[in-house]
């Protein structure tokens, strides 16, 4: 159930599982300094990305609880990998999910992150029957925060200096949307 066995299509994007041929696309994304700025990670070269991709490809298929679904985001017109996103969820009584990801800077500013997040919410609420889906961003990452707000997540918390990352104390913003709020958006689309 909880797989992207069938790729999902949005107006401009295909959301699908990772393939071995995605190594160059992933490297193009995560070798960049700016993509890693608000992540825990440092820029990685192709060799380093190979093990990251292998982990995505070889993850256990049958883990139910606290699973992570890596999502390769591909621009359909050009078949180029433009984003690495994920939906993580718990199948316990709490029914919580988390969405997040990185979009290649060459493709930012076109609403592609919003398009991706909207589809991830659809999967989380509709297919996985989750109750609440949240996102976590570095407090300085205003582009990601804005994209999550556009699909209806609301700020729940701004944690101040809750983590020490890359030599400095950083803030974390937590945003979330609950199931009923998402259902209401299905009646009255906002974007």
């Amino acid at each position, binding site marked *: 159930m909880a797989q992207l066995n069938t790729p999902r299509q949005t107006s401009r994007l295909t959301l699908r599982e990772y393939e071995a041929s995605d190594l160059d696309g992933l490297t193009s994304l995560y070798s960049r300094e700016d993509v890693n700025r608000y992540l825990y990670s440092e820029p990685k070269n192709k060799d380093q990305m190979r093990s990251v991709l292998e982990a995505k490809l070889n993850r256990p298929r049958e883990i139910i609880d606290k699973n992570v679904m890596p999502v390769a985001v591909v621009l359909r017109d050009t078949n180029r990998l433009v984003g690495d996103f994920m939906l993580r969820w718990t199948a316990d009584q709490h029914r919580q999910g988390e969405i997040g990801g990185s979009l290649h800077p060459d493709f930012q500013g076109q609403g592609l992150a919003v398009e991706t997040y909207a589809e991830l919410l659809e999967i989380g609420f509709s297919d996985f029957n989750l109750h609440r889906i949240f996102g976590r961003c570095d407090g300085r990452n205003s582009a990601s925060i804005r994209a999550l707000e556009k699909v209806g997540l609301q700020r729940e918390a701004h944690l101040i200096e809750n983590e020490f990352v890359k030599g400095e104390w950083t803030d974390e913003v937590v945003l979330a949307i609950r199931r009923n709020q998402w259902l209401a958006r299905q*009646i009255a*689309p906002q974007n």
Partner: protein
Amino acid sequence: MPTNHGHYDAVAGDFERVLLGVAIDQWVLPTPCDEWTTRQLSCHVIETHRRALSMLHRSPFHEVSESDDVVEAWRAVSGRVLEARDDPALASRLVSGMGRDQNFASLVEGLLTFDTLCHNWDLARATEQDETLNALAVAYAHEALEPVSDALRGSGNYGPALEPAPGASAQTRFLNFTGRHV
């Protein structure tokens, strides 16, 4: 995985109770929804359900006819909605034409719940019945709809929100939010 049907069952049951409480001579009374009589408002709720079912089954939609018994028509349509929602194959089927494309279960848990809840109050008010709505459903709907307030009003679903009086109950605050004078 646990499932969640939201508040539809309770809201549908309450709507049936208020329909049963409408006296025979009350079906022509005006309602808080200015353009509708009590019968027309009830038919609107029934027809919203019928529309959802016709989209689900890709079958023709029929308005409630003059000769139909409103209570019977409601029982039939809400029963069919519940049946479909509890059938996993139908519940997960995508329905187009009522807001965004969404599966039938979401339509029941969202639109049909919100719509039936609000009109329950309208009908109770118009026929001088107990106006108390299910408190959990009120909280659920208010919390859900508040973030999409502008879009709801833009689409003509709700009138302008009213400022609740100080100390107003949660139900009154919700009804004021939907533009209803309480």
